[in-house]
């Protein structure tokens, strides 16, 4: 398991695209949108940065799914899935080894983007434990869904397209681009079915209202359950994924 995790991490670090999607582009978006919306008199500066920084952090966290899709589909097309299945490594350890580096990358991404927010925009962080728990839950759900998507999709392009629908559609409907309160009631109801909504509401609770663990437990539970569902789908889809692997 650790061998798979180490190898995946080494490979992933070399991927320049990942660095761009994970760190460079989110920073550009945050800078641009804070500049645009900080002149808005209807919202305080604190509300603006609390909407934009966690919002874009959540949105770009979902883009890790692209890297996961590429990693799994490549494994399948090169026959690595079948090759690893011929070794004594169990399926659970294979998935854990593949998953671990991506969860680390998402956690680093959240830390870097929030750190950027603190240094540049004086973003308050609230209760650190609640913030860490929420961030772990966010990293868990995006990588859990990423794993499910990576195992299910037939091609890289299909995975990239679906990720964009999930990340951008979820960002729009989940209130990452503008507060859900400004949206029609129907959309507000839809947004409650999206993990993006629960992640953002959790961060707002911690940052704006100084919320603690007791205030975000439902958000954490929903994110973790959604992540577990992704993991179960990935495990159940593994036999088909293995059959499709070259060998």
């Amino acid at each position, binding site marked *: 398991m650790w061998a798979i995790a180490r190898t995946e991490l080494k*490979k992933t670090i*070399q991927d320049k695209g990942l660095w761009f999607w994970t760190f460079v582009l989110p920073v550009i978006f945050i800078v641009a949108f804070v500049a645009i919306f900080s002149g808005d008199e209807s919202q305080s500066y604190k509300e603006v940065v609390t909407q934009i920084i966690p919002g874009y952090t959540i949105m770009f966290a979902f883009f890790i799914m692209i890297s996961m899709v590429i990693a799994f589909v490549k494994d399948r097309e090169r026959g690595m899935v079948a*090759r690893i*299945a011929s*070794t*004594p490594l169990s399926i659970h350890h294979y998935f854990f080894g593949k998953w671990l580096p991506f969860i680390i990358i998402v956690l680093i991404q959240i830390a870097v983007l929030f750190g950027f927010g603190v240094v540049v925009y004086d973003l308050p962080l609230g209760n650190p434990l609640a913030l860490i728990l929420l961030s772990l839950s966010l990293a868990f759900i995006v990588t859990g869904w990423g794993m499910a998507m990576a195992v299910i999709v037939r091609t890289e392009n299909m995975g990239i397209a679906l990720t964009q629908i999930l990340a951008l559609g979820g960002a729009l409907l989940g209130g990452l681009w503008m507060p859900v309160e400004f949206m029609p009631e129907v959309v507000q109801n839809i947004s409650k079915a999206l993990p993006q909504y629960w992640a953002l509401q959790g961060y707002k609770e911690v940052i704006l209202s100084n919320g603690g663990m007791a205030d975000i437990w439902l958000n954490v539970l929903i994110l973790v359950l959604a992540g577990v569902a992704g993991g179960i789908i990935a495990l159940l889809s593994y036999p088909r994924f293995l059959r499709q692997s070259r060998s």
Partner: protein
Amino acid sequence: MISVENINKQYGSVQALDSISFKIEEGTCFGLVGPNGAGKSTLMKILSGILLNFNGDIQVREWKVSKDRLKIKQQIGYIPQEICLEDTLTAQDNLILFGNLYGLKGKALQLRIDEVLDQIGLKDRAKDKVITFSGGMKRRLNIGCALLHKPSIIIMDEPTVGIDPQSRNSIFSIIHQLKAEGSTIIYSSHYMEEVEQLCDSIGLIDKGQLMEIGRMEELLEKYAMPSLFISGDNIETEMLQRFGKVESKGNGYLLNSDDPLLTLEKLVTYCREHRIEPRRLELYHPRLEDIFFNLTGTQLRDA
């Protein structure tokens, strides 16, 4: 002893393997031959523990695959047809990955990596990224990754596809070395001459069924005795039929008879008397392909 007992595998309505049973003596090289879609790869995947959903059982020494899958996997080194390497990592990193997957660590792993790199002739390229390797070097590293844990059974699925003759020879010498060390090798290939050259016994598979199994000499004796090959401008089937059973082969004919040498003598006399000058007239030693043809009525290469 590896014992394969009544293996059946179905993909939807397609019967990929139909009641396959055979035994392989330890320390021998067993060749699996058949056209594309015959069921070779499915059988190789089952033998290497990749495909788990099948009927029947496989026994390796005292272990049964249904009960002792992990113990059997530890004994097997699988060399797939695809080159399963991490291109962006070094040869050493790839070997570490596969060594770790078989439970090798630390100094013991490094020692084995050095030995394997020496064995596959890549010691001076250990720190280079695989992406910079030639096809032959990648194939050798692909083999090396399966040898780290010193498996007693090595399963090779078309290990020489798409490489130059020099690399092929290099792979052959690795295989000969493994044979000399007493490894059991299960070898699948489209190249008949490779199977003839390397394998002690051969299994012929077609449409999911094991048509025949045996040592090369036994199969030849049973299905394809030496015959005569003749070609030339005035050579016709009617003329040859008086000497034995005739079948066309390439640009000439194969003449089968109980005593090819005697038939050769008679044919030479006949040609002299009738002033026929064959372009080629020779004893023809049948190959694996001929055995397969005699068994199935189809050519291996275009089946």
